[in-house]
C-alpha cells in the first residue's frame, strides 16, 4: 500500500515536469500549428544558463536561496525567450506560408544545431547543476517520502498554468493570440500585427522552457547538451495526448504520461516502459483523434 502511494507521488512529480515543458510546446503549437522540435533544446539551453548564472548570481546578490533561485530562473527565462524569438525570426518566419513539413525540417535542423553546438560549446560531459534550494522531505517515513522539490514543481506548474490562462483570456495580447490561432488572415484584417503576436508567443513558450529547465535541473541535477531530447519528446507526447494547443490538456497529458510511465515501470515491466506509454498514446488517439481535451475548440490558445 505504501509502495502504491509512493509510486503515485513519483508519477505525479514526474508528470508535473512533463506538464511544465508541455505547456510551452502547446502554446507554440496552438498558434503556428507546427511541431517545434527545437523546444527541447531551448529547454537544454535554459539549464545551462542556470548552470553558468547561478554562481554569479549568488556571488553578486547573495540573497536568500529562494531569491537567488528566482533570479536564476528569471535569467534562464529571459535568455530562452530571446533565443526562441531569434529562432522564430530566422528559421521559421520566412517559411510561414510554406507546408508544415518544410518548417519541421528547419526545426529539426535547429534542434541538431543546438545539440551539436551545445556539445561543442559546453562540452559533452554531464555537469552538476548547483543546488538552488535546499531539498528536504515533507513526509519522511520508512516507506513514504515526499520531497519539497516535487511540491515546488507541482505548485510552479499549477501557477504557470493559471498565469498563462489569465494572459490568454484576460489580456489584449491574449485576445490577439486567440484570434491569430483561429485564423491568421482574418486576424491580420482586424488590425492585429501577426508578427508581434507570434514573437510574443515564442517568447512566452520559450521562457516557459527556461523556467521548466531550472526546476528540472534542480530535481535532476546532472545536465548535458542532449538532455532536452527525451523530456522534449515526452512533453510533446503529453501535449498531443491532452489535445495539442490546449493548456489544460498539456497539464493533464503530462500527468497521465508521468503516472503511466511510473506504473508501467513499477508494476508491469520497466524494459517495455517506452513501448507501453507509446501504445497508450496511440490507443487514445485512435479512440479520440484530437486528444483528450481536443474537442473544445474555444479553449485553444
Amino acid at each position, binding site marked *: 500500500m505504501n*509502495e502504491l502511494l*509512493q*509510486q503515485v507521488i*513519483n*508519477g505525479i*512529480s*514526474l508528470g508535473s515536469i512533463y506538464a511544465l515543458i508541455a505547456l510551452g510546446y502547446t502554446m507554440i503549437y496552438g498558434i503556428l500549428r507546427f511541431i517545434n522540435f527545437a523546444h527541447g533544446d531551448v529547454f537544454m539551453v535554459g539549464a545551462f544558463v542556470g548552470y553558468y548564472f547561478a554562481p554569479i548570481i549568488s556571488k553578486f546578490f547573495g540573497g536568500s536561496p529562494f531569491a537567488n533561485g528566482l533570479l536564476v530562473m528569471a535569467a534562464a527565462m529571459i535568455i530562452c525567450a530571446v533565443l526562441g524569438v531569434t529562432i522564430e525570426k530566422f528559421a521559421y518566419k520566412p517559411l510561414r506560408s510554406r507546408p508544415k513539413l518544410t518548417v519541421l525540417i528547419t526545426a529539426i535542423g535547429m534542434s541538431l544545431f543546438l545539440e*551539436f553546438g551545445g*556539445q561543442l560549446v559546453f*562540452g*559533452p*560531459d*554531464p555537469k*552538476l547543476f548547483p543546488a538552488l534550494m535546499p*531539498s528536504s*522531505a515533507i513526509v*519522511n517515513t*520508512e*516507506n513514504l*517520502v515526499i*520531497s519539497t522539490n516535487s511540491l515546488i514543481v507541482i505548485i510552479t506548474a499549477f501557477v504557470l498554468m493559471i498565469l498563462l490562462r489569465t494572459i490568454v483570456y484576460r489580456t489584449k495580447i491574449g485576445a490577439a493570440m486567440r484570434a491569430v490561432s483561429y485564423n491568421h488572415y482574418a486576424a491580420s484584417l482586424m488590425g492585429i500585427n501577426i508578427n508581434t503576436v507570434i514573437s510574443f508567443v515564442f517568447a512566452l513558450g520559450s521562457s516557459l522552457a527556461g523556467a521548466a529547465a531550472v526546476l*528540472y535541473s534542480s530535481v*535532476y*541535477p*546532472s545536465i*548535458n547538451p*542532449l*538532455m532536452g*531530447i*527525451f*523530456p522534449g519528446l515526452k512533453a510533446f507526447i503529453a501535449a498531443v495526448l491532452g489535445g495539442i494547443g490546449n493548456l489544460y490538456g498539456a497539464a493533464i497529458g503530462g500527468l497521465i504520461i508521468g503516472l503511466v*510511465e*511510473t*506504473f508501467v*515501470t*513499477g*508494476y508491469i515491466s*520497466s*524494459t517495455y*516502459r*517506452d513501448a507501453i506509454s507509446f501504445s497508450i498514446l496511440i490507443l487514445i488517439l485512435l479512440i479520440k483523434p484530437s486528444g483528450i481535451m481536443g474537442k473544445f475548440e474555444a479553449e485553444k490558445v
Partner: protein
Amino acid sequence: MYKSKPAYIVLALVIFGLLVISCGRKTSDNEILIGEYSSLTGTTATFGQSTHRGILMAVDEINKAGGVLGKKIKLLTEDDQSKPEEAAMAVTKLISRDGVKAIIGEVSSSRSLAAAPICQANRIPMVSNASTNPEVTRKGDYIFRVCYIDPFQGEVMAKFVFNSLKLRRVAILEDVKNDYSIGLAQYFEENFKKLGGEVVATQAYSEGDTDFKAQLTALKGSDPEAIIVPGYYTEAALIVKQARDLNMNMPFIGGDGWDSAKLTEIGGAAMNNTYFSTAYSADDPNPVVQNFVTKYHKLYSDSPDAFAVLGYDAARLLFDAINRAGSVEGDKIRDALKATRDFPGVSGMITIDADRNARKPIVIIEIGDGKMKYKETIQPD
C-alpha cells in the same frame, strides 16, 4: 533561367564534396600513421572525448621520447557520431584512404563490432580501448582489447559482493539500451547465483533517463541487501542520489563505467556506501599511475575517468607492440600484440591472452566521506 539556380548549387556542392573527399593527406616517410575512430559527437561524446584525450597524451609522450622505431607517431582521428555505420565508414576511410598501420577504438562494443570485420579483412591490427562484449575480439586475430570482458568483470563483482561484503540478496538495475550494461548484469547474475546468492529483482532504465524513482521504489519492495547498477556514471550518480532520497541506504555496486570524478561530483554525499570495480586507483603509488594522473591534471585541469585511462593504455600498448615488432606490417604488429606479457599500463599489468583479451588485475574502489578509496585488488586466475 532563374529556376535552374538551385540545380547549379547542388552541382557545385556535389563537386565541392567530391573534391574535399578526394584530397588525401600527405604523409612523410618518417611518420607512422595510427588511426583512431571515436565518438567525438553524439550520444556517447563524453566517453569518446575522454578516450581521445588519453590517446593524445600517449602520442604526445611517445613523440617527445623519440617516437617509435625512430619515427614519429601521427594520429589521425575520425568522428563516428556514436553510430556503428559511421564507425564502419571512418575505419574504411582510415585504412583505404589514409593508409594507417593500426587502429585504436572504440568505447562502445556496437561500434567496434561494426569496425572490426573491416580491420580484419584488411589485416590491420585494431586495439579496442573499452569494448567489453566478448564477441568483439572473436571477429578475428587482428582484433585486441585492453579492457576487461564482461564475463570477467561480472564474475569479480559477484565474488566481491558475496565474499567480501557477505551479502546474499541483491537486486539489479540495468540499462537496457546499453550492451555493456546488460552484458555485465547477465554475467554478474550467473556468477552470483553460482556462488549461492539470490537476485531478488531486476529493473531497467534507458540511457539518457533522469528519473529512476519508479524503478527504485519497486526494487525497495523486494528488500534487497544491495543494488547492482552496471551502467555508466552519467546515470549512476542520479540513481544513487534518488535512492537515498527514498530512504534506501543499502550499498550500491557498479563496474568500471562508474569510474569518473563526475560520480562523486554529481552524487555528492549520496555516493557514500557504494563500491565499484575498475582498472586502477588514483591513490596507487605506482609511478606509471601517478605520472599519468598528474600529467592529465596539468593538461586538461580535470581528473581522468576510466575511458581516458583505457585510451592511454590502448595507445601505449600498441606503440610498445610496434616497437617490439620492429616493423609496421600488420601481421608483425599482430604477432607482437599477441606476445604482450606484463605490460605496465595505468590500468595494471596487462597480459594479452589467447583470445586477444587483456588479463589484468581488477581493483575495487569504495566511496566513503565523498571520496574514492582503494579497497582491494583481485587478480585474474
